[in-house]
């Protein structure tokens, strides 16, 4: 029997729920009593069920942001999920009677400041708890307050507290700083004052059909054992953290409530409702039933009309739409979103040129027909002369930008790029949309400097924005198979995070149709949406299917134009916080690109002079500005040219 994969968080307040699983499993495995010391660590353990009948439990601990990912990507069956993450995923089963919540003051989640909250201009948010961030937004909105909110690491959040800047702090820092600042808004207390209901921060959530009733009992037994050890847990944490043992004991026994009774459930339901009303969370209903048979499961029509109205969809909603949504219903809903976001009926396009400065690359992705290994006779690096000619043609044709991307060529150092960028900016003055995350990471490794430093140096040399290429599918199972040597999903996202925080904008892309499942495609969209919640830095999203005509080592996946249109429509519906969706006519062909304008897209991409990567795989579509505008007009829209930030450069006509 394969073990039940359980994932918990290391937080002190979570320990009573999982600690005995770890201790018992260690005892079961070593045949000796578990050591009572030992900090929570990321090492796992196993707990055996009743002899013979129940799969053993395998516990793993991880940071809270990792939990939802592990559950969504089928690396865990049950997780002690923050409730906002659970709503975002959707279709999870709530285990009975166990939660981490508070009825009134919680002490460990608070906004602290030098002034009363209504006098603050800004609040730094510790982004490690999405639930607390959503709660903060709801409580501020209720008070009709709109301070500037910005993300920060826990330490940076505390450090940024100033005269008119407060901070949302969570966990040990919040307990530690309990009396440090004159003003403090305890979020659970404020929630109680508003709703007269407890607030539930986290609970055990299971993937559909993953946990049997018998297994669920093991969690309840673990909780009972954990609660019996609260004094010890408090003592251990006091020793490690330097916080007062009595204060911690009171925290665990009086502030935190581990029950999930009717009142707590009502509190959770209320939070999800308020979050959905504010567009911060997908509509969700907590359920102890298996979600796919639950009576509360909304119909596809309901999902589609919610999405068309701009409500947030959960990951599970997205998967259902992708699997079951009909061609026209998805298209009409995506078209409605497009119309709401862009009511003037204008479709943009950009006149730019894609320049692949080198085809030498060390990654050898199996879907790529463009790259040549180092030392290959067909490898090239474009000379200034050739580049200059290309750039001049762009300027002459009224172009506004260069999209500069290339292979990971170890011979090209960062100074080469800096010189190039300065020269390009000085001589031609074009927008520089350059170097996908993969190339940024490559430079960071090659030079032994941080991603931030690479971006700062390139930005100083003229970089304007970062193209979103190389995202493929941001799920590591897929990336390991199709592009083993490429950066991981979180590395890709981190480059974008850093770039966005520096004020650089970027696009986001997706290449589906290799070995990815509908769940993984939607997970990709959720990851982009999550980062966008944090940074707001993505300007637009483009997707395309894997191009398999020649030269590559992947067999064709599932990639008809019918699917492309459905996929793009689902992306438009999921990515409620990304302004623009572009039709990828370079890969799909201008005809399909045009139809895509009725499936949620409001941008027709580039008038491209050349695009070597796609054309190496057999796709060669080239059309000019006039042909693009005709297609936009025939589809029923006005056309205008744009720059990389989607500003209109011409009067729409």
């Amino acid at each position, binding site marked *: 029997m394969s073990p039940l994969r359980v994932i918990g968080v290391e937080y002190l307040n979570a320990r009573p729920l999982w600690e005995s699983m770890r201790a018992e499993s260690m005892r079961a495995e070593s045949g000796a009593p578990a050591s009572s010391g030992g900090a929570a660590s990321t090492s796992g353990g196993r707990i055996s069920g009743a002899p013979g009948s129940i799969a053993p439990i395998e516990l793993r601990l991880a940071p809270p942001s990792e939990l939802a990912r592990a559950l969504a990507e089928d690396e865990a069956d049950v997780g002690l999920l923050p409730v906002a993450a659970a709503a975002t995923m959707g279709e999870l089963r709530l285990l009975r009677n166990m939660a981490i919540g508070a009825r009134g003051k919680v002490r460990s989640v608070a906004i602290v400041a030098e002034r009363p909250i209504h006098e603050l201009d800004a609040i730094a948010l510790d982004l490690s708890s999405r639930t607390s961030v959503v709660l903060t937004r709801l409580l501020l909105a209720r008070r009709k307050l709109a301070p500037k909110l910005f993300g920060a690491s826990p330490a940076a959040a505390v450090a940024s507290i100033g005269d008119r800047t407060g901070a949302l702090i969570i966990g040990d820092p919040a307990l530690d700083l309990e009396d440090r600042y004159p003003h403090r808004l305890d979020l659970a207390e404020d929630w109680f004052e508003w709703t007269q209901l407890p607030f539930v921060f986290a609970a055990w959530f299971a993937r559909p059909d993953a946990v049997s009733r018998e297994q669920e009992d093991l969690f309840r037994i673990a909780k009972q054992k954990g609660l019996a050890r609260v004094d010890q847990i408090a003592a251990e944490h006091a020793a490690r953290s330097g916080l007062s043992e009595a204060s911690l004991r009171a925290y665990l026994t009086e502030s935190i409530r581990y029950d999930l009774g009717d009142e707590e459930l009502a509190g959770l339901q209320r939070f999800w409702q308020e979050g959905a009303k504010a567009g911060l969370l997908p509509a969700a209903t907590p359920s102890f039933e298996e979600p796919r048979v639950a009576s509360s499961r909304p119909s596809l029509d309901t999902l589609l009309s919610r999405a068309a109205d701009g409500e947030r969809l959960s990951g599970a909603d997205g998967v259902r739409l992708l699997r079951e949504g009909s061609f026209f219903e998805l298209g009409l809903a995506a078209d409605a979103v497009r119309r709401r976001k862009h009511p003037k009926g204008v479709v943009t396009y950009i006149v730019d040129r894609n320049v692949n400065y080198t085809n030498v690359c060390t990654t050898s992705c199996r879907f790529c027909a463009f790259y040549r290994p180092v030392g290959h006779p067909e490898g090239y690096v474009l000379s200034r002369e050739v580049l200059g000619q290309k750039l001049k043609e762009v300027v002459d044709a009224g172009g506004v930008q260069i999209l500069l991307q290339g292979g990971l060529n170890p011979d090209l150092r960062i100074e080469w790029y800096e010189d190039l960028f300065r020269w390009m900016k000085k001589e031609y003055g074009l927008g520089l949309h350059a170097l996908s995350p993969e190339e940024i990471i490559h430079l960071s490794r090659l030079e032994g400097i941080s991603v931030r430093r690479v971006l700062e140096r390139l930005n100083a040399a003229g970089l304007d924005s970062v193209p979103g290429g190389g995202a493929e599918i941001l799920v590591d199972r897929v990336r390991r198979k199709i592009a083993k040597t490429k950066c991981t999903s979180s590395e890709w996202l981190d480059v974008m995070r850093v770039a966005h925080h520096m004020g650089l904008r970027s696009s986001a892309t997706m290449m589906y149709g290799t070995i990815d499942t509908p769940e993984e495609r939607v997970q990709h969209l959720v990851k982009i949406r999550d980062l966008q919640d944090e940074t707001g830095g993505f300007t637009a999203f483009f997707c395309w299917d894997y191009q398999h005509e020649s030269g590559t080592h992947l067999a064709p996946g599932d990639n008809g134009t019918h699917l492309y249109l459905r996929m793009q429509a689902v992306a438009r519906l999921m990515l409620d916080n990304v302004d623009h969706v572009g039709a990828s006519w370079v890969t799909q062909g201008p005809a399909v690109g045009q139809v895509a304008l009725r499936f949620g897209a409001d941008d027709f991409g580039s008038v491209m002079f050349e695009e070597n990567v796609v054309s190496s795989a057999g796709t060669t579509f080239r059309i000019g500005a006039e042909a693009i505008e005709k*297609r936009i007009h025939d589809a029923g829209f006005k056309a205008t040219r744009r720059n990389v930030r989607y500003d209109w450069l011409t009067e729409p006509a």
Partner: protein
Amino acid sequence: MLETIRQKVRRGERLTFDDGVALFHEPDLLAVGQLANEVREKLHGDRTYFNRNMRVEVTNVCVASCLFCSFAKLEEHMPGAHTMTLEEAWKALEDRKDDPPTEVHVVNGLHPGLPFSYYEELLAGYKRIDPKVHLKCFTGVEIHFFAQHYKMTYREVLERLRAAGLDSLPGGGAEIFDEDVRKRISHDKATADEYLEVHRVAHGMGMRTNVTMLYGHIETFAHRVDHILRVRALQDETKGFQAFIPLAFHPDGNGMKNLPAPTAVDDLRTLAVSRLLLDNVDHLKAYWVSLTPDVAQIALRFGADDIDGTIVHETIYKAAGTSSPGALRYDDLVRLIREAGRTPIERDTLYNVVREHEKASAPEASMKVKDRVRPGGKRSLEVVS
């Protein structure tokens, strides 16, 4: 307006000329498509037809001078003009012994210098090679030309050809029926009335035919609606049309090369409106050679229930600059249809079922790919279902 039309369609009420024009002007393309899809699914469910066919164009010598044509060469001695010997024409079928088509589709230029017996022998020869093969040959325009050139009535021409092996007529040559437009784009071949009369006679003889419409050049939406309604009127009379086939004008290398080709949105809309107006014609064909396979796949949601066949060796659209391949493999057609979430049905020319394929269970995940390690340690991914 759309709502009124929707109600009419759902009540099974016939649409008018004005309804047709309104549908062409309706800004919400998807709403029009969805309505056409309703009609299509009521008629055929998910069933989507294709066949194993073979195109032969035995001559491009042509006395007509249609502005939209990039195929015909006026006279025999001109460069590029070519007429197959009977042996060459037959060989095309003989070469397919291992993968025999169920249909041979012959369309030609109007060649002034061949004896009528050439065509009779052509047909008889195909039947000798494969007595079961269906011969769908010669457009209404060719039949009209034969009648004039060889001094026979339409019926006489059709009877002699049928005796030689002809089974049905393809739908080419309809262009646009409106007399003014037709005069401007193809003044020296069968008129609309003559074209329709050929089909009337053929239907009267119990022969089934198809009918086309060439759109996207100088005609207006009203001309298209008029064209479709003339088809509908004849069909009321004869019930002989099997399929209606809108054909997109392609501008390369012909007398209208300054015009842009119709775009995909126009293609899809034209199919959808055709489906809605033609309540008495069973099948609507998305001819993939004209549309490209990519757009043809989408067209299966805009009213079309047929995607034509494997074709092999199409030269007419090729000459006009289509980006479509000259042929699709049988499996490609099956996949194209399945990816659109439809059930592929191999048919013969008369829409009898040859083979019914399974619908993909989940359209977005119809292909499963497996990671394999090849000898020598090289890894690759292969389709396993």
